[in-house]
């Protein structure tokens, strides 16, 4: 890649924005159909009541909240790649960060739907926002659900700003190549960017500070999501390990999702020169690390359940492993901790088919983890009188899940056609500048 010229990079990477073919429209139509079906299912749920989603006492949180946590987690690795690896000056991040950051924004836009879908009267969702109501009653800032709103809203805003800031110089490139109405639209979006020394200087400084702000933010967000559970007194939830455990899990699932998305993307757009096997291999190495952290966390949870001497805690964890949700539990263990270890073999982590397959397995495993944490704990709290099983999944729940996944991919499909999926500017930074002589005065 280092031998490429600036002009070549522009030419290669802008080909992704050419008018799409029939395949694209077919996928788009399918995606919209699934989304429409999901919207119908949600409207049915609103008209009929939450009971159609299989939620009843004692399992009042189930697949919606599990999927909420799942998508928030997916978002995290985008920020890891775009902000944290930027601060560490990791050069291989430049080619993949745009896709990862787009994934962050779209995953948050998807995650944000779930708490609203989970409301019996979703049109009153704004009650959780701080605004002066008629009765002078304000929101309860001691509630973790309010923290969640602040955390997720901040995360979405900062990620969207970071994503858009990174796009501006590339939008200027698109503007300069475009004609007609496209030139007007991209010209408006590029806001008059010219690449002057003054612009680069302040832009570079702002970008660095946004990365520096996004880094503690990303760690806080999943910690706060974990406190939705950890500050309650439900066995299996009430644990100090939850913050780091959730953050590690988030990055684990997110890295897998980056692989799931990058592999077809580089194939369809023939971006193998830019999104190389090394990139995928590096992601696989990171997944080995996060997989080991997950294994350690699962082990610690069981150890503490035993070592604490708390019989309820112990009963919950035995129930997880051998009870009604044992299948989901063992999927979680095998998919999240054992499957990533296969990447230790070089042959596996350099094989595209294996990378893609294992990334899907981890996605499933991480969804199963959230399901196990939420449902298995609620189903089996303290007194046996109040035990009960999750009455789902119902067709409504599954349709809404499919619809929201379609919502995520809809944004991705639009992104892949209307914006450069690989950062032109940051890839140019990697290659040698054009020089007349060997040295720069």
């Amino acid at each position, binding site marked *: 890649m280092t031998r490429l010229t*600036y002009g070549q990079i522009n030419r290669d990477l802008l080909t992704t924005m050419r008018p799409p073919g029939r395949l694209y429209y077919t996928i788009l139509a399918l995606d919209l159909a699934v989304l429409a079906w999901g919207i119908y299912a949600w409207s049915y749920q609103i008209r009929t009541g939450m009971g159609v989603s299989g939620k009843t006492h004692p399992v009042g949180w189930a697949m919606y909240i599990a999927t909420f946590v799942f998508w928030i987690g997916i978002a995290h690795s985008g920020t890891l790649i775009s902000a944290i690896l930027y601060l560490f000056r990791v050069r291989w991040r430049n080619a993949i960060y745009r896709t990862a950051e787009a994934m962050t924004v779209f995953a948050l836009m998807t995650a944000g739907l779930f708490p609203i879908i989970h409301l019996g009267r979703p049109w009153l969702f704004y009650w959780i926002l701080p605004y002066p109501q008629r009765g002078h009653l304000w929101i309860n800032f001691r509630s973790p659900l309010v923290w969640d709103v602040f955390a997720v809203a901040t995360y979405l805003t900062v990620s969207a700003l970071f994503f858009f800031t990174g796009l501006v110089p590339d939008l200027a490139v698109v503007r300069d190549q475009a004609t007609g109405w496209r030139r007007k639209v991209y010209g408006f979006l590029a806001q008059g960017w010219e690449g002057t020394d003054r612009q680069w*200087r302040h832009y570079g400084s702002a970008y660095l*500070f946004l990365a520096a702000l996004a880094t503690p*933010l990303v760690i806080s967000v999943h910690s706060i999501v974990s406190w939705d559970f950890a500050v309650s007194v439900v066995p299996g939830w009430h644990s100090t390990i939850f913050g780091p455990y959730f953050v590690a899990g988030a990055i684990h699932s997110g890295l897998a999702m980056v692989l799931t998305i990058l592999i077809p993307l580089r194939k369809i757009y023939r971006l193998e020169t830019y999104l190389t096997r090394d990139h995928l291999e590096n992601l696989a190495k990171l997944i080995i690390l996060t997989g080991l952290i997950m294994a350690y966390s699962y082990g610690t949870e069981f150890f503490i359940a035993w070592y604490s001497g708390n019989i309820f805690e112990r009963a919950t964890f035995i129930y997880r492993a051998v009870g009604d949700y044992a299948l989901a539990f063992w999927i979680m263990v095998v998919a999240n901790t054992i499957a990533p270890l296969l990447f230790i073999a070089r042959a596996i982590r350099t094989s595209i088919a294996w990378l893609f397959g294992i990334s899907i397995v981890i996605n499933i495993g991480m969804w199963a983890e959230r399901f196990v944490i939420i449902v298995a704990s609620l189903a089996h709290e303290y007194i046996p009188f109040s035990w009960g099983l999750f009455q789902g999944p119902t067709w409504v729940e599954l349709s809404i899940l499919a619809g929201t996944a379609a919502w995520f991919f809809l944004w991705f499909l639009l992104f892949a056609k209307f914006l450069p999926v690989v950062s032109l500017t940051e890839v140019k*930074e990697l290659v040698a500048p054009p020089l007349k002589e060997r040295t720069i005065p």
Partner: protein
Amino acid sequence: MSGRSVEVLGIFAHLDAFTRAIRSVRTSGYRDITAFSPVPRHEVEEALQAGRSPVRFFTLGGGLLGCITGFVLTITTSLHYPLITGGKPIVSIPPFLVIVFELTILFGALGTILGMLLNIQLPRLRLEPGYDPCFSIDRFGLLLRCAQEHAEAVEKILRSAGAEEVRREEDFPD
């Protein structure tokens, strides 16, 4: 500088020639320089001897404002309607710190964006007359404002530094 001033633009294909030109015009005493480049390069910044960006003060200001907002919002609204929940104090600082932290980050980020936009004077709908689309591909541009009588001397400096093309204000495309 007396009389009418004029803009001169040099277009360069090579980074080393470009930085040489920047140094030459600076030694000749010209300070009203704009350098266009397709990528940010430290060599250009060094040649221009640019100072540090003040954006960091906007980040700090935004962060402090967010921090204060977080405390004021949580404490005053809790005192305004003192309803004890969960047997906890009305002003419970530890949970409020979560809100304070998030608002610090949020306002810090908004401040950073605001600082950047103010400093680079964007958004703007019109591009600078000297701007050429080749600057977003692979060319470097040096735009310079000087007195009309100096224009020829400047053009000579740019050419001798290795400019591919030199344009005067009247030749700029619309």
